[in-house]
């Protein structure tokens, strides 16, 4: 048995010849581990932890955009939010966007995964086609969206008119339609992600469970409802967390596709934070405060989901 296999089997590894048994205690601390972990830790520190701490600090300051000088404001930036109509609108839009896109992208992803896991001809090609939008940057997807949804020269409206519609849809000048265009583009990107995670999960479901269910007389829907759905539970939990975080932080696609307009109808927390901090008014303190709100909301949601999921597992 190799050392790795022995470890995996829960046995003590055989001490290599020529090594003192006393050194085994030190093997927990392996200096070469630093070489592997170090770069990631440094990157996370430089680009994640420090900026995050910086955001918390700046959210309580007034920041002069040119000199970078800060003046303490306490919670003033957070108080400003309460009277900021655009912030409230962005918060509601973000919630609405999350409530619509997360279940839809997961349901579609699961449906596609089940399809791809069956005897669909050309499965590999279909998987690639559905997954492809995920590897394109959000900015590119937004740009593709602008070609599709431009209400004067866009492909979608030209197609609608060619199919006999009297006029196109006001994708850019009507708030509700603009919101729908953002949701459609987002689904296009996110469905592939949900599908690939569900697919991996489905492939781990033992086929004999389906056979047993079939023998017990369960029909297709019952097999899906009572076997597939519970067994992909961990994947669902993972996807809810990931998709909710994504939806709370959505920025690039909306920024390029609608820039929050028309009016503020597609403004979300991410775009509003950016506009406040780096737009013409350059209020970086207030922008950071909105960032903190996004962080806290995401954190609270994740904790709630995590606890709910843990208790469910315990009950099971």
């Amino acid at each position, binding site marked *: 048995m190799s050392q790795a296999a022995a470890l995996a089997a829960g046995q003590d590894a055989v001490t290599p010849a020529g090594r003192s048994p006393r050194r085994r205690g030190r093997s927990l601390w392996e200096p070469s581990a630093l070489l592997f972990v170090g770069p990631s830790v440094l990157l996370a520190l430089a680009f994640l932890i420090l900026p995050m701490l910086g955001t918390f600090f700046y959210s309580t300051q007034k920041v*002069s*955009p*040119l000199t970078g000088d800060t003046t303490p404001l306490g919670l003033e930036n957070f108080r400003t939010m309460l009277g900021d109509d655009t912030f409230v609108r962005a918060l509601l839009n973000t919630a609405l966007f999350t409530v619509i896109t997360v279940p839809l992208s997961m349901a579609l992803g699961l449906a596609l995964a089940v399809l791809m896991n069956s005897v669909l001809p050309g499965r590999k090609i279909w998987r690639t086609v559905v997954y492809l939008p995920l590897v394109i940057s959000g900015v590119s997807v937004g740009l593709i969206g602008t070609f599709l949804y431009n209400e004067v*020269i866009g492909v979608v409206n030209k197609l609608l008119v060619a199919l006999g519609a009297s006029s196109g849809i*006001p994708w850019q000048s009507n708030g509700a339609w603009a919101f729908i265009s953002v949701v459609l583009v987002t689904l296009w990107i996110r469905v592939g992600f949900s599908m690939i995670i569900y697919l991996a999960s489905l492939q781990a479901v033992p086929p004999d469970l389906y056979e047993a269910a079939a023998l017990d007389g369960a029909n297709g829907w019952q097999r899906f409802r009572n076997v597939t759905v519970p067994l992909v539970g961990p994947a669902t939990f993972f996807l809810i967390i990931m998709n909710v975080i994504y939806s709370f932080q959505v920025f690039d696609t909306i920024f390029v596709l609608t820039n929050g307009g028309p009016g503020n109808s597609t403004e979300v927390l991410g775009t509003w934070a950016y506009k406040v901090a*780096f737009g*013409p008014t350059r209020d970086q303190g207030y922008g950071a405060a909105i960032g903190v709100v996004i962080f806290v909301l995401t954190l609270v949601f994740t904790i709630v989901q995590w606890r709910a999921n843990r208790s469910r597992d315990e009950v099971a």
Partner: protein
Amino acid sequence: MSLNRRQLLAGGLGLGAAAGLSACSGLTSKAGSSAPSGGASAGGPVELTFVNWSGDEEKAAFDAVIASFQQANPGITIKTDTVPYASVQTNLDTRFQAGNPPDLFRVSYIDMGQYTSQDVLLDLSASLDANAFEPGLFSAVVANGKPYGAPHQIDTTAILYRKDAFEAAGITNIPTTLEEAWTWEQFTDASNKLAKVTKSGQSAFIYDWQSAGAYRWLTWLFEAGGALLTPDLKAAAIDSDAGRKTVDFTSGFFKNGWVAKNSSVKSTTYPDAAFQSGTVAMAFAGSFLVPTINSGVKQKFEYGAMPQPRDVAASTDLGGNAVVAPKSGKNTEAATKFLQYLVSEDAMRTYCQATNQLPTLKSLTASQLDFAIRPDLMAPFVLQAKTLTPEQVAQVTVPQFANLNLALQNELEKAFLGGRSAADTTAALAEAVQKAVQ
């Protein structure tokens, strides 16, 4: 060609108040006269960083001016850093915050106030001759009585129109002077006629108030005799009869279907793209867009230019830029030398002619320029520049103008696409403006 152009421009050239023009020859040894000569500042060769945004023609023109400056000043080299307009402010903020601002950078007149209010720019009182510039334009770079930038060029908005669309609509009264400019009623009439001949997906015109251009709506307000701020610049003056009339009239562009709904103030549909793609019969466009539009239109259709409509007055917007140096720069002496050169007569002429932009020096506004591209279109732009008053310039260069521009963008969008009434809109604007200037 040259003769036609000169004939056309003969009547048009001359910016600013007539009084300002009477003393137009008073160029001194300060900037605005001839190119300075001699070597670099003491201490050996100097490399200056110049952050700007530029179209192709502008970049080529900057390169040409820089090359001739470097030839005259062998000790100084200038490295240009061309960044997209959309990110220039973030770029500069970052450089300033890192304590390493560029030696020179370009600033829109409407953004000057943001920099002067934070006292980060080099005082050019000793380096520029105020009398050499058009007074109304020079005031755009002045704060607390001191100039903090070299007023490099301006651009104004006029109307570009398709000749075939005008023929189809039977429009023949095309104005060539400010006095002949269409009244708002005549403009209404022409737009209605054009709306009848446009096809699906096309519209009568597009106005250039998108995104940061929201302030160009003020042109209509000024035409109606209104003002954004009171003369002391300390309070809102928008909630007035002229303000309501202007909101009403401009909202009508959308209600009457004269403009595409996706060309509102928050949109990313710009007039040059719409005009080139042939979806509009008229485009309100800045002169700086003429080179881009001309290469985009090619021979697809013929087009001309005419002044914007007028109501109680003719007006336009203050487009254009100054070039400035930070006061904490490491090479302020060399930077000042370049700024002086940039606004010298020769350099300004070279730059403006190559880019279809308008000069700020009295000596050049009183003379004829050989614009490189479609010079036959330039007369209306030059005429429009005459309509800018120092009072209007003052309103768009206050330190809080970024906030005012944002308020215009947000509130006008609600009137244009949300159908909010003129009275509610001017009241909301007044409130937002008041909050910003206090």
